[in-house]
């Protein structure tokens, strides 16, 4: 019991942080849907949503309300419990990844040092992999429980795609980890603050990682699980109302978190470019620096979100065999070569 008493303030702090980060991710995901439609409209010379509120800014809220008020349909032949579990799992796993991302440097609240990271575990990146590999189940369970051939096909496609690209993703990260020598995301950011961003040292690794992130998020050109002209609507064909909403929304949360991971691993995280944070903190205070750092991270995230959307409205979808070809025969050998070269260079420099 004593241990619980000591940890109470820490627990409260973490609880607030978790609540804050989750609601922030949901808010960002909400407005990414708006951004997606606006950018798509801009690229296709249209206006996009412009009726709900000024510049159509209330459109995401209207969409959400619409989904909530639609009729919930659970197919009679489906497996009821698993049918509900599918979208819930998709959403939960999308959210869980945010736990190890450092959202900013340490801040001071009422004399307490508060870290803007929910958990600085020493297996940081592996934790992300673990959660991502759990993300498959949201798709698979939902697709199977729908008791629909198209849904099942899409679910299997999605799962095999995610497993295949996880390999190349892991291999490309090993090269990065050889350079950093740590798995903790916080230490990786700290190293980049002094030693330059990892993108300089690992351009090929970054490229492979980015492609794999696109595949993991089921985004175009890898959105075969929901290829509507082949599979009607993919693994969420039988879903309606907010359960469908959760599936669609989980994709946007995934995009947001993946952007944060890419920014943290390769683009310095909350590092403000060309600024010495320690000197800045001495000048304008710790909290103001933290706010600026978070702004820097957030602008990097916004850039990657834009990249996601940009690619979606530019590049057509792969065929399924092309997708597997790219994953197994091109990305994995490339990632292996990248890993070997990095290892040789690291050994050579250390000698």
């Amino acid at each position, binding site marked *: 019991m004593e241990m619980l008493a000591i940890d109470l303030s820490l627990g409260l702090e973490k609880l607030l942080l978790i609540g804050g980060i989750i609601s922030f991710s949901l808010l960002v995901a909400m407005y990414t849907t708006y951004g997606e439609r606006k950018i798509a409209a801009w690229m296709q010379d249209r206006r996009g949503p412009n009726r709900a509120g000024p510049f159509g800014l209330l459109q995401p809220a209207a969409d959400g309300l619409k989904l909530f008020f639609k009729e919930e349909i659970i197919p009679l032949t489906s497996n009821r419990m698993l049918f509900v579990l599918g979208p819930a799992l998709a959403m939960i796993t999308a959210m869980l990844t945010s736990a190890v991302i450092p959202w900013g440097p340490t801040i001071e609240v009422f004399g307490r040092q508060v870290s803007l990271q929910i958990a600085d575990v020493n297996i940081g990146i*592996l934790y992300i992999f673990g959660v991502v590999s759990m993300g498959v*189940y949201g798709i698979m369970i939902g697709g199977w429980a729908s008791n629909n051939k198209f849904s099942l096909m899409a679910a299997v496609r999605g799962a095999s795609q995610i497993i295949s690209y996880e390999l190349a993703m892991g291999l490309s990260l090993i090269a990065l980890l050889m350079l950093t020598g740590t798995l903790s995301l916080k230490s990786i950011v700290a190293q980049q603050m002094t030693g330059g961003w990892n993108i300089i040292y690992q351009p090929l690794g970054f490229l492979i990682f980015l492609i794999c992130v696109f595949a993991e998020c089921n985004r175009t050109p890898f959105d075969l699980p929901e290829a509507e002209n082949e599979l009607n609507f993919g693994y969420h064909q039988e879903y309606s109302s907010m359960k469908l909403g959760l599936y669609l929304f989980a994709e946007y949360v995934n995009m947001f978190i993946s952007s944060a991971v890419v920014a943290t691993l390769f683009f310095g995280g909350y590092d403000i470019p060309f600024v010495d944070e320690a000197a800045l903190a001495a000048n304008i205070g710790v909290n103001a620096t933290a706010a600026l750092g978070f702004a820097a991270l957030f602008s990097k995230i916004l850039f990657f979100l834009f990249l996601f959307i940009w690619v979606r409205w530019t590049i057509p979808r792969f065929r399924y065999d092309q997708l597997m070809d790219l994953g197994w025969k091109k990305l994995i050998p490339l990632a292996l070569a990248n890993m070997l070269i990095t290892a040789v260079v690291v050994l050579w420099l250390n000698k």
Partner: protein
Amino acid sequence: MHITEILFWILTALALFSALMVVSSDNPVHSVLWLILVFMAITGHYILMNAQFLAIVNMIVYAGAIMVLFLFVIMFMNLNKDSEPQKSVWLRLAAVVSGGSLLLILVAALKDNGGYINSMKGEGSIGLIKNLGNTLFTEYVVPFEISSILFLSAMVGAVVLGKKESSTPAA
């Protein structure tokens, strides 16, 4: 009770209950899902032992990759009660006997644990990735490399078997 102790009992109950459900549920897909829950509970146990690397690898490899393959196969075969052939009485009896003797051996092995269980209480650091890596690549480097060759040959074997199937032209 200490917080880790409470967590330990919750996880243990979860693991045992899910393991029972793996065996007793009718639908094979449900069995696989319960098995995933077992792996999750064991992952929790590893974390309680401060073996974070082991925990996460257990989650990625077993719960993440292997179980997905199980699910693949079972979902495609669409197994249910009607399609499953009834086993003969002798086969069932043999299964009960062999399963029972395995249980007996496990219980006998664990009964006299020599204080091993008490030494696994949380503060160990061998499961942390740094120590584990150091141990694997210094003390146990030969078994480690040999087992990796074993894995490689298994992988090559699987590819060869897969190729054989597809090279025969479909009539």
